[in-house]
């Protein structure tokens, strides 16, 4: 079994040091080899369960209700400009 920690960390947008990559590779492989035991079960006829409530398509009424003010929304942001969140350049 193999796991490309560098690739996974990139997918997860998680900056890791080289030491962390080495440490996590070993630990993740141990965990993955433990969960291998699921391969022993016959799941051919088993449906999937992604949630157990049985609820489907829960919607709410399309009605406006009070929400946070602009100042409140920005109150935890370390970087904002003219009442907007400031984000890193992506293009």
């Amino acid at each position: 079994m193999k796991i490309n920690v560098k690739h996974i960390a990139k997918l997860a947008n998680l900056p890791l040091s080289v030491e962390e990559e080495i440490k996590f590779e070993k630990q993740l492989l141990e965990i993955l080899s433990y969960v291998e035991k699921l391969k022993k079960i016959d799941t051919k006829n088993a449906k999937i369960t992604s949630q157990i409530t049985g609820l489907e398509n829960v919607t709410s009424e399309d009605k406006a209700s009070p929400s946070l003010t602009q100042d409140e929304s920005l109150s935890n942001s370390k970087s904002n400009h003219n009442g907007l969140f400031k984000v890193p350049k992506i293009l």
Partner: protein
Amino acid sequence: MSLNTLSIKKAREGLSKRQFSSVELVRACISKIKERKNLNAFITVCEKEALEKARQSDKKIKDRIDLPLLGIPISLKDIYLTKGIRTTAGSKVLDDYIPQYNATVVKKLEDVGAIIIGKTNCDAWAHGSSGENSDYGHTKNPWSEAHVPGGSSSGSAVSVAAKMSFASMGSDTGGSIRLPASFCDVVGLKPTYGRVSRYGIVAMASSLDSIGHFTKNTDDSALMLSVTAGKDLNDSTMPSKNVESYESYLRRGVKGVKIGIPKEYFALGLDKRIKDNVIKSVKSLEKEGAKIESISLPNTEYATACYYIIQPAEVSSNLARYDGIRYGSARQNFGDEAKRRIMLGTYVLSSGYYDAYYKRAMQVRTLIKKDFDEAFKKVDVIITPVSPTLAWKLGEKTSDPLLMYLSDIYTVTANLAGIPGLSVPIGFIDDLPVGMQILGPQFSEGKLFQVGKAWENINL
């Protein structure tokens, strides 16, 4: 007798008879928090605010206003959003986060008069079984400070066990209420998935997260559920089920109640002394008229593996929102355990691995749920140990994540099946507390309280 040792019920009686004041209750709790500061049960203590609220409560009591928790100091795991009060989730990523709104449960508790005395320590993001993953230092077991209190709702369990608060709200995604309850000698309830609103509580694994609480006894546990349960339009995963009168179950006794004992939970790996204690407790319920039946939950062996795929998958998705832009700080500030789970989850969801891991785990989840469905056709409740071992020494499992994960072996099943579980204290071994787990079908919390209370009555 110190006021902070009272149950909620007794404290409410004393308050309404004006035998003591809410200010005195808050002072008694605060002084215990200060006296045992070394347990590190709290991240934030709201002394000034709680005292002010207590003064207001005393006025209301004088005016004969009667509310279920009026004047009662409680604590909240630091993953409950509290308007204007710092909420860290035990992680430095949220070190300076001040929520702009309250979780639904916080609002419900305040509406019935509860006083928030502080925010309790926990494993960061509720990831852990020992309380040692907190970025704010580990919490210690109040019965033996060299041992873990259990996690992830570590500070919540300790705050009730050490009489620092009358009840504490926690969260249980794979055992995070039941395990610390059993390690700290308090009652812990993991309600049915969807019984209590998750809105405004930092999400760990959204299909598994259950919102529950710690109390000193079963009566108080029933009382707490009766005020926290119920539909919330802000949480779309809540079935429309009426909130029952849980109190009415407490005096029913166990005559004729069918209790299932699943052989898989008493197999190899379980400390023999714990096994003997649980069996002894079941026998005493039998003497009170309960019917004991041996049952099998054949897929139990696969539950932990199933859980450690589904849970990290959902964790990786939930923690993706922390980008340090709208709140919190950058992703390198995640601790080791969060990083491990984010990567494990990302891996099992990634292209080429989804079917082999995530899809397969969701199929196994169906089989585990079916085991319980079948079992509950034969019995009313199931009784098991909470943990295969006693509370372990601080530091003992921190370098071995897999070993730590395996401590949840008897608790993750209830989260996968969405059923409720109650952990009740059954005594001490080597001066460390032991708990017993009572499981029931979805929305059968009343039945769990019934059995829990019958057990307490035997031990009076």
